[in-house]
């Protein structure tokens, strides 16, 4: 067996074979390989005597194993054996050493041998040279992943550095180079410095290597001057000098100035080397110390970079080295080829010198024309460097380059493609791109493919010969690797098609250009129509482009491709399972446009619209309704969807100057002026400094908001001055939000609201609210948003181009036409946009509407519920490279139009104000009705999950309104300008002074008790609110009911004891926080992810473990959808916490299982900049308290329930230090178990709650203070439920929580 094994494993067992191989395979590359030692056919491997028989057998078996699997199996057995052996007490050093070697072997084969780590460290502490060396060796291999143990070794290393045995000192030095961490450098540094002048050259060499390690790991630890480095460089031993060159190379890269003075020394060393003055032992295949030559050339390259003076010093020696190497090169010595290649690299790197460049170009020729692929590869690489300084170089070798492109060798092809990128210009771009496309087909490596696509796109952008070519090139790239094409590029193509070529020259060519542009559009439409009809499977992004273009320009190619066919093809596409909702949404917009353009609406489209009107995606729903709406009003089609208008400007008044009058009026009436963001931040800082003791409570306010009825009354009383309230109100709302934003905490709410979740909220259209938020954060959005409010042109295509965020706004915008109630919201918007009170006030002119204006208004009202003024202006054409073109120039607005706009807006403003004056209360009611209707609608759509979220978002909306009205009253007190709206819940500040609020509210309540009961809409909720107020108790329930004012639904927020988001994870790179929101029938968990490091973490992915109870999972980012397996591919999150990624999970009761859930789990993985992947399993704890909801009930009801309910649990809370009276207990119980307080009688209380609104899972609670003999009272609790495990859960939970 042994012999047999030898025959297959010996490297040189067969000289003939080796020779043959050399002469066939690598004839020209390695002619010197045959010089390798004489090979005998019979080789006997004798295992070393210190290895046990056991291990020798294992090695033999492993050696004979035919596959990795078999090998793995053997090693698994060995590891179990080793574990046993290692655990034996009193291991003899010799045995231990052997075991460590065995462990080393197992580790090598890819197994974790953590159990051996300490033993390896122990072995290094032996005095026996061999044991010590093996110990060090194993430790330095093992401890790469377990550096804590290095601490145990540092002592031994220090001792060994002082040893008299060179081997021991060297072992210690080698270990230092492998394991030292910056904090331990000082511990060994002095000794290592000493060893630099040790008499033994091996020790000196290793010490130099250790110095290199120090320099690499912590450059500051060394405070050495150039002389210290020079001393080691000029060491008489070539090996030490060779090692010192590594230090110089490192310095040349990091601190070239330090060693520039040494160029002559370095050059003279190189001269000595090439003249063969080193010991003959350093020759390698007749070449003098090739690696030292290469190192020096590299150093020179760095030192001469961009430095003429330094470069001049080295020109001669480089020429000389090249000449010497050339001799070896011609003899086919690989090492000489290596030196020559390095010479070329150095020449291209240093300050260019024509003579050298010519020489290099000539040498490159020798490389690329070689028959060896290795040399050709290096020739191409050298060319890549050379063409930058010497562009003609490539031209000489073009034939070879083309040959290399078609070479079967993948590495060579790949490198040649890289060269092509360097030599591309506008004349060869067509050919080169063609070649690259061919190559792209063959690439399988995804990383490489991605890189390639990016570079190809860049090239075609930079050197595009014309737009038509550009479009078709991008199309071809997308067909091959569509998913890798950056999104920007796709939008660019859309824009390009829409706008045509750029030509700034004279106007005369306009017409010709126009023709060309139409030609381009037609061409694109034809291309894409063909692609669409071919029904090939393309990536999502490509579909979006195709659909958009067809939607816009299908009429241009209707002769070749009947529009009906295209519409049907789009219908087919919509139904395909593998496209995303965004693409579907774009499909519907395209259909809308096509219907508008052609006037035909095929049955299939009709059916599809019907079907998707009930879609889960609100965006799609929206677009379907839009399509329906437009069909119903065919006369406005031309107005809203004129053909080919995507590139026309939408004019808008950025300053919203038409509102100045309104603002001014408000100011005169006593409203607060607008405070800019900067001022707000400053104010916030000042107030923080001023009152640290009056520490503002952040997060949720627990005291009640004033119920709305009182406000209504107030207004009725104050009659004429109502509008003042409005202004104050909105300002305050905005202020408080801004403060929150500057706090920069867990501001999930704005995004929840801002995403496409809440376009249809219970209060109707909520788009304006969103816009307020985006306004603050993003200027671009502001502009688009403003567009929405003021203009009505063909925004849909426009915003599609700008991204999804704006496409949401787009749909919001048209949403308005169905909802006339948004005037209310309009009021909120106003002060937000008007940033400058100082702005000139424009006196309104009496609206004298012309016929045309009226018509426009009609259209506008139909569409937006408001009005707008349109001006269409041809946009200046843009270059291909421009990506962000959303921001339009406000100077485009002609004075005439502005006036028009003002007129109409003033008109509207008046409307609003009248509404406010007379109709406020009614509007609230309307609002509420609307909400209910909306909810019902959605209910009918069988989309239960969606409602939850819509309700949720509507709450956000509603809540803001609530605070709005409330603040108006608070304001009278001038005490509390910060109003907590739902934002506060997410960790903003603005908690405000709760006591003050409370009294305030109570007062008002006292004044207006009747209103409360009279108002039907506020009915129950309001009643309970006041009930709680009168008890003057802060409780969660108040908040519930407050939020419940509008739609009987409530939200309460709590996360642990604080109301701030709890941190789940913070590993220095990613920070993950969560917060729980308690809705009536569900638990909503919001998770926010932030990248807090200053590096990018990439490939972030989240996988959520779905549970029975989990109903909905969605992200707030419309782009990052949750996949069906619970995965969210987040990708990248901007560093330094600049960007948040959030997702929401909602949990509902499901088959009585939810309350036993203990946690929601998800996995988070990401790759750090070092390409390391991190995994985290994250658990969000859920307790029974999170699932309990207060259940209102009367005492009598409680009594009858108590008798009906079977399961009873009793427990005592003993010696409660935090409870003094039954009221304290009730407060605590409300907080912990969310119980509804039914009645307190003496020392007893009855309370009730249920699980997430489920009437079948009720919890009846009876508590009594029983024992006053102790220091603190005890409470005897009885609870009854109809589920045993629920009762047990609550009991355990209470015992735990009440004690805290």
């Amino acid at each position, binding site marked *: 067996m042994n012999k047999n094994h030898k025959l*297959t*494993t*010996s*490297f*040189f*067992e067969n000289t003939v074979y*080796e020779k043959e191989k050399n002469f*066939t395979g690598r004839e020209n*590359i*390695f002619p010197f390989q045959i010089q*390798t*030692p004489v090979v005998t056919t019979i080789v006997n*491997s004798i*295992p*070393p005597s210190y*290895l046990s028989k056991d291990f020798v057998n294992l090695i033999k078996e*492993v*050696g004979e194993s*035919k596959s990795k699997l078999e090998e793995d199996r053997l090693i698994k057995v060995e590891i179990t054996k080793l574990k046993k052996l290692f655990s034996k007490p009193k291991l003899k050093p010799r045995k231990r050493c052997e075991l460590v070697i065995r462990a*080393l*072997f197992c580790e*090598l*084969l890819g*197994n974790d041998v953590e159990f051996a780590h300490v033993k390896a460290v122990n072995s290094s502490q032996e005095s*026996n*040279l*061999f044991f010590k*060396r093996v110990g060090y*060796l194993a430790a330095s*291999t093992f401890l790469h992943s377990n*550096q804590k143990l290095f601490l145990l070794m540092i002592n031994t290393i220090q001792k060994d550095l002082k040893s008299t045995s060179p081997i021991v000192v*060297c072992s210690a030095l080698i270990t230092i180079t492998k394991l030292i961490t910056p904090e331990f450098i000082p511990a060994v540094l002095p000794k290592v410095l000493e060893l630099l002048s040790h008499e033994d050259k*091996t020790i000196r060499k290793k010490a130099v*290597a250790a110095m*290199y390690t120090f320099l*690499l790991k912590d450059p500051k630890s060394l405070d050495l001057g150039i002389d210290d480095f020079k001393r080691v460089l000029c060491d008489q031993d070539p*090996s030490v000098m*060779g*090692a010192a060159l*590594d230090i110089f190379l490192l310095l040349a890269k990091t601190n070239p100035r330090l060693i520039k003075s040494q160029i002559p020394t370095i050059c003279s060393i190189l001269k000595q080397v090439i003249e063969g003055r080193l*010991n003959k032992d*350093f020759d390698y295949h007749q070449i003098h*110390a090739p*690696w030292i030559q290469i190192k020096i050339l590299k150093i020179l390259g760095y030192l001469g970079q961009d430095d003429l003076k330094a470069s001049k010093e080295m020109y001669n020696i480089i020429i000389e080295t090249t000449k010497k190497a050339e001799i070896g090169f011609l003899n086919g010595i*690989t*090492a000489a080829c*290596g030196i020559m*290649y*390095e010479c070329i690299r150095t020449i291209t790197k240093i300050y260019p010198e024509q003579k050298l460049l010519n020489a290099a170009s000539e040498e490159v020729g020798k490389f690329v024309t070689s028959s060896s*692929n*290795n040399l050709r590869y290096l020739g191409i690489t050298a060319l890549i460097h050379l063409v930058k300084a010497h562009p003609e170089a490539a031209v000489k070798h073009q034939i070879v380059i083309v040959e290399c492109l078609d070479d079967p060798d*993948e*590495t*060579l092809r790949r*490198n040649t493609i890289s060269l092509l990128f360097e030599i591309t210009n506008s004349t060869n771009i067509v050919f080169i791109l063609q070649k690259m496309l061919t190559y792209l087909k063959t690439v399988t490596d995804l*990383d*490489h493919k991605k890189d390639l696509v990016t570079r190809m796109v860049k090239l075609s952008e930079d050197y595009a010969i014309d737009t038509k070519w550009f479009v078709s090139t991008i199309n071809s790239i997308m067909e091959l690797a569509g998913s890798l094409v950056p999104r920007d590029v796709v939008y660019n193509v859309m824009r390009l098609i829409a706008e045509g070529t750029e030509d700034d020259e004279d106007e005369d060519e306009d017409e010709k250009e126009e023709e060309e542009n139409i030609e381009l559009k037609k061409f694109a439409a034809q291309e894409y129509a063909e692609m669409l009809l071919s029904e090939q499977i393309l990536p999502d992004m490509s579909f979006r482009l195709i659909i958009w273009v067809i939607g816009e320009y299908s009429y241009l190619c209707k002769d070749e491709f009947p529009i009906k066919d295209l519409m049907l093809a789009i219908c087919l596409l919509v139904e395909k399972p593998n496209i995303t909702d965004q693409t579907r949404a774009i499909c519907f917009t395209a259909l809308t446009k096509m219907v508008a353009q052609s006037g035909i609406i095929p049955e299939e489209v009709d059916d599809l619209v019907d079907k998707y009107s009930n879609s889960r995606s609100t965006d799609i729903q929206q677009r379907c309704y839009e399509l329906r709406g437009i069909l119903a009003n065919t006369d406005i089609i031309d107005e809203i969807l004129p053909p080919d208008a995507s590139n026309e400007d939408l004019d808008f008044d950025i300053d919203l100057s038409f509102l100045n009058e309104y603002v001014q009026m408000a100011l005169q009436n006593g409203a607060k002026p607008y405070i800019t963001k900067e001022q707000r931040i400053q104010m916030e800082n000042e107030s923080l400094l001023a009152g640290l003791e009056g520490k503002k409570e952040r997060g949720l306010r627990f005291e009640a908001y004033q119920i709305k009825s009182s406000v209504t009354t107030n207004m009725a009383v104050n009659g004429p001055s109502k509008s003042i309230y409005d202004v104050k109100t909105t300002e305050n709302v905005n202020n408080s939000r801004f403060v929150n934003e500057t706090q920069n905490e867990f501001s999930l709410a704005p995004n929840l609201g801002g995403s496409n979740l809440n376009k249809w909220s219970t209060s109707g259209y909520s788009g304006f609210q969103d816009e307020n938020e985006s306004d603050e954060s993003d200027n671009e959005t502001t502009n688009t948003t403003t567009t929405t409010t003021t203009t009505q042109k063909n925004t849909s295509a426009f915003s599609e181009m700008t991204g999804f965020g704006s496409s949401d706004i787009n749909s919001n915008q048209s949403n308005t036409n169905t909802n006339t109630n948004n005037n209310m919201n309009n009021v909120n918007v106003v002060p937000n946009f008007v940033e400058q009170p100082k702005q000139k006030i424009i006196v309104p002119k009496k609206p004298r509407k012309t016929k045309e204006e009226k018509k426009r208004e009609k259209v506008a009202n139909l569409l937006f519920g408001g009005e707008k003024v349109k001006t269409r202006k041809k946009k200046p054409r843009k270059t291909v490279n421009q990506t962000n073109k959303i921001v339009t120039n406000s100077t485009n607005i002609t004075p005439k139009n502005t006036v028009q706009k003002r007129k109409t807006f003033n008109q509207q403003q008046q409307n609003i104000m009248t509404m406010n004056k007379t109709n406020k209360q009614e509007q609230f009611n309307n609002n509420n009705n609307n909400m209910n209707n909306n909810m019902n609608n959605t209910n009918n759509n069988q989309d239960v999950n969606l409602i939850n979220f819509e309700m949720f978002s509507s709450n956000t909306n509603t809540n803001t309104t609530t605070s709005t009205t409330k603040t108006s009253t608070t304001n009278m007190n001038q005490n509390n300008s910060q109003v907590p709206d739902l934002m506060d819940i997410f960790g903003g500040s603005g908690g405000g002074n709760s006591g003050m609020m409370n009294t305030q509210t109570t007062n008002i309540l006292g004044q207006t008790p009747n209103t409360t009961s009279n108002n039907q809409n506020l009915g129950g909720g309001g009643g309970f609110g006041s009930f709680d107020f009168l008890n003057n108790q802060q409780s969660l329930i108040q908040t519930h009911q407050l939020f419940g004012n509008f739609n009987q639904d409530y939200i309460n927020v709590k996360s642990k004891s604080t109301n701030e988001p709890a941190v789940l994870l913070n590993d220095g790179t990613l920070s993950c926080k969560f917060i729980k929101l308690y809705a009536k029938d569900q638990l909503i968990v919001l998770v926010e992810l932030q990248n807090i490091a200053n590096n990018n973490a990439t490939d972030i992915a989240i996988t959520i473990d779905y549970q029975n109870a989990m109903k909905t999972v969605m992200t707030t980012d419309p782009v990052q959808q949750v996949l069906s397996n619970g995965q969210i591919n987040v990708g990248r999150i901007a560093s330094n916490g600049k960007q948040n990624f959030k997702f929401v999970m909602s949990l509902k009761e499901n088959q009585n299982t939810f309350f036993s859930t203990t946690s929601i789990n998800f996995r988070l993985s990401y790759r750090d900049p*070092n390409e*390391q*992947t991190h995994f985290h399993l994250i658990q969000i704890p859920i307790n029974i308290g999170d699932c309990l909801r207060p259940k209102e009930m009367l005492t009598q009801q409680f009594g009858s329930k108590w008798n009906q309910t079977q399961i009873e649990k009793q427990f005592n809370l003993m010696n409660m230090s935090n409870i003094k009276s039954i009221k304290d207990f009730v407060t605590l119980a409300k907080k912990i178990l969310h119980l509804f307080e039914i009645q307190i009688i003496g020392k007893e209380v009855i309370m009730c709650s249920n699980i997430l609104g489920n009437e079948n899972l009720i919890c009846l609670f009876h508590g009594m203070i029983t024992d006053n003999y102790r220091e603190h009272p005890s409470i005897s609790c009885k609870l009854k439920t109809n589920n045993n495990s629920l009762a047990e859960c609550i009991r355990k939970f209470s015992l735990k929580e009440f004690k805290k």
Partner: protein
Amino acid sequence: MIKFILIVNKLGQTRLAQYYTTGLSINKRVALENEITRRCLSRKDKECSFLEFRDLKVIYRRYASLFFLVGVDEEENELGILEFIHCLVETLDRYFENVCELDLMFNIDKAYMILDEMALNGNIIETNKKNIIAPLHIIDQVSKKLK
């Protein structure tokens, strides 16, 4: 700079692996080795001895049943490394006297020590075979006394 030196046989079984970068977990390491080996094994004799893999350049050389692979960064001289591999093989051959796969397995500790003498910190530090082998002979004298 050298990132790793790897010796695998034609079945893809690792026979020696030395890494000069820290922080690579064992699982990652195994995956990397498998992937690189797979790619190297699939290459033909006539094709060049270099392989671009992620941000690495792998330079490999085959000797009978064993593949020697060296992963380097962009800056390293490919031919220099190619010759370094050969120098390593020559050294192993001189030390083991006609080295074969089994020698490396039996003397895994010695093989590592030879590597340590030739390269540190990912730099080629010694190519003089006499200098490389001298310390090993001293250690051998000690280890041979062990029974």
